[in-house]
């Protein structure tokens, strides 16, 4: 190294040119997103509008979750991205590839090893901890959409905590079908105040948000709304006193890869008219199989035990 003293040029002083910012978004956009998230945490379940930047992924493909992830992520994070529970789903693979290309962070398929999990339509089966953030991609943030498509009126209804139409919708299902037939996106009351759509996670996953140790950020890029379920916050699916909330029936289903029961399963139709079942949470399945071969950590405690009992006693009736 030569020690010729010389006046530094502008080029020397400027940092090395990059064709994108760290984590793609410019700093002011990330700051806006983080402020939006803080507001969302302060008002559990309240949908906070934000500008929502265009990102190099098509709208409706997780751009809201992606913006939240890009704003939260730092060099020390470990990222997991899942779609329908699977790490190798093409869109999950694509989002993971993008975030890791823009940040260089480590990625994992192990839900308990990740600090940041971006997910579409699933909450992992293993219990998440306090140092973890779950970002859920949200196609439609408005739980009242099916009863009131006009956003301005729906906002007024949230302000008034006027959820009568929502209750009526569930009651009508009960009258027509003899039970509540709402599938995924089950409307749920957060902190006794705002009804949210928990995103299209199955009913199996909604209880996992209740008094959770982790923070859940729900972000809708196309609809430009973001909301949160902070740690240790009540989340109650709307249920009538005499009609308890019911998760999908997993009894009798055994994962053909792992032998596991009482977890949310994918049904795989077979040529002979039968069906096989496999764990929807692919990372969990991978962990079980690897651990069985002595190649990796043992799976941790799950929200539902092998008898299908939820870890908060008495929460599910």
């Amino acid at each position: 190294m030569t020690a010729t003293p010389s006046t530094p040029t502008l080029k020397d002083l400027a940092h090395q040119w990059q064709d994108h910012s760290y984590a793609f978004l410019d700093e002011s956009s990330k700051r806006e997103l983080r402020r939006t998230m803080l507001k969302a945490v302060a008002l559990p379940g309240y949908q906070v509008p934000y500008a929502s930047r265009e990102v190099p992924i098509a709208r409706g493909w997780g751009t809201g979750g992606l913006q939240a992830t890009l704003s939260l992520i730092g060099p020390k994070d470990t990222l997991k991205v899942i779609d329908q529970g699977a790490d190798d789903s093409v869109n999950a693979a694509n989002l993971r590839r993008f975030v890791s290309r823009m940040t260089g962070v480590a990625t994992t398929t192990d839900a308990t090893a990740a600090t940041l999990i971006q997910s579409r339509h699933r909450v992992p089966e293993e219990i998440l901890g306090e140092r973890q953030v779950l970002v859920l991609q949200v196609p439609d943030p408005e739980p009242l959409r099916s009863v009131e498509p006009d956003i301005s009126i729906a906002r007024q209804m949230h302000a008034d905590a006027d959820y009568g139409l929502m209750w009526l919708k569930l009651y009508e299902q009960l009258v027509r079908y003899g039970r509540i037939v709402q599938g995924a996106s089950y409307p749920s009351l957060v902190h006794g105040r705002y009804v949210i759509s928990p995103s299209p996670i199955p009913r199996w996953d909604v209880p996992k948000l209740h008094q959770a140790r982790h923070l859940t950020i729900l972000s809708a890029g196309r609809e430009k709304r973001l909301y949160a379920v902070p740690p240790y916050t009540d989340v109650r699916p709307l249920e009538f006193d005499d009609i308890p909330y019911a998760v999908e029936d997993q009894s009798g289903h055994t994962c053909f890869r792992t032998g596991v029961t009482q977890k949310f399963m994918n049904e795989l139709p077979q040529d002979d008219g039968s069906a096989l079942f496999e764990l929807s949470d692919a990372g969990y399945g991978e962990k079980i199989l690897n651990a069985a071969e002595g190649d990796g950590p043992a799976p941790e405690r799950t929200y539902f035990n092998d008898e299908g009992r939820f870890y908060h006693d008495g929460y599910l009736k």
Partner: protein
Amino acid sequence: MAYVAARGGENAIIESEQLFHDLNGPLTAEKVRVIMETVPYLLDRVMGEASLYAPELAALAIAQSGGELYEAALLLRAYRTTQPRLEYAAVTEQGEMLTVRRISAAFKDIPGGQVLGPTLDYSHRVLNLGVLTGEGAVRHEATPAPEAAQPTYPALADWQRKVGLLPEVTPDTRTGHSVPDLTREPLLFPPARAHELQGLARADTGGLLTLGYSIMRGYGLIHPTVNEVRLGYAEVNLTHPATGVAFSAGRVRVSQAEIVTEFAGDSKTPELALGFCATLGWNEVKVIAGGTLDMNMQKAADHGEKHPAHTPEFVLYHTETVEASGFCIHFKLPHYVTFQSALDAMRQVRGNPQGVNLPGSEVPA
């Protein structure tokens, strides 16, 4: 063998992208240049929907996406969102715009005159098949007028205001940072006037046409009359941040339409009212449809019965080109978790939760 996730998917998506580009042929600077020089109206449409005036980048986006216009608009928008705001241009008035075409359907002649300018309106829509055999290759050259046309024309609306047909307007004096910006702020309802006009300016051309046409054909509150359609070049006037000297950074192609309706105001002294739409690039269908929608949205604000195409929420959300196209194609993504959840609910109602003929199920009667 351990069950390995996150492998197959990644290779598959990389190869599928390669195949797409492979089938479209090589992406070269020459290809981009040819697109830029030969299809200006296509560039205009993409630049308008992307709200980024950059013909070379638009040509690149079209080439790179193989002409898939929704992809091209998204490419440009995703690029635009990363660019810093260096300066804000000064407001350009209609009367200052270098105008090449301006016509009014409201009057036979208007101050400054009707200027047909470049248009296919009166062309015979006959394919020039001779071009394919090399016989019909033609170089069109317009005959210069004996006297050069004037570069600028007054706004017809100014005359209408002067004679009391249109109400006076208070000019919005906000400039630069203080102008509401749809790309940096959430769209809330009722929308800021600036947000509404920006939303129309970057809307999907086909979307505005569909909703605009629904109004024109039978669901409108007004009969639209084209007060003025204008194509021109607007100067991008900036002030040098160091010297404070005003200069033009260049010109952008813009189009705008004013739609006029009668019998606005109160019943004693009815007056005219204007709907407006402007966009980057020359796109007459878009601005006429957009202006008609704007007129109806304003009128509907004080009108009881509303059609979806009269409400800003319906119009602005559903003509958002990148959001609408993105959400449409997102249905290709797997939805088997939500489907399974609905299937469970359905089977519960049918009384065999495990499914017909599946392990644990009852044999159906």
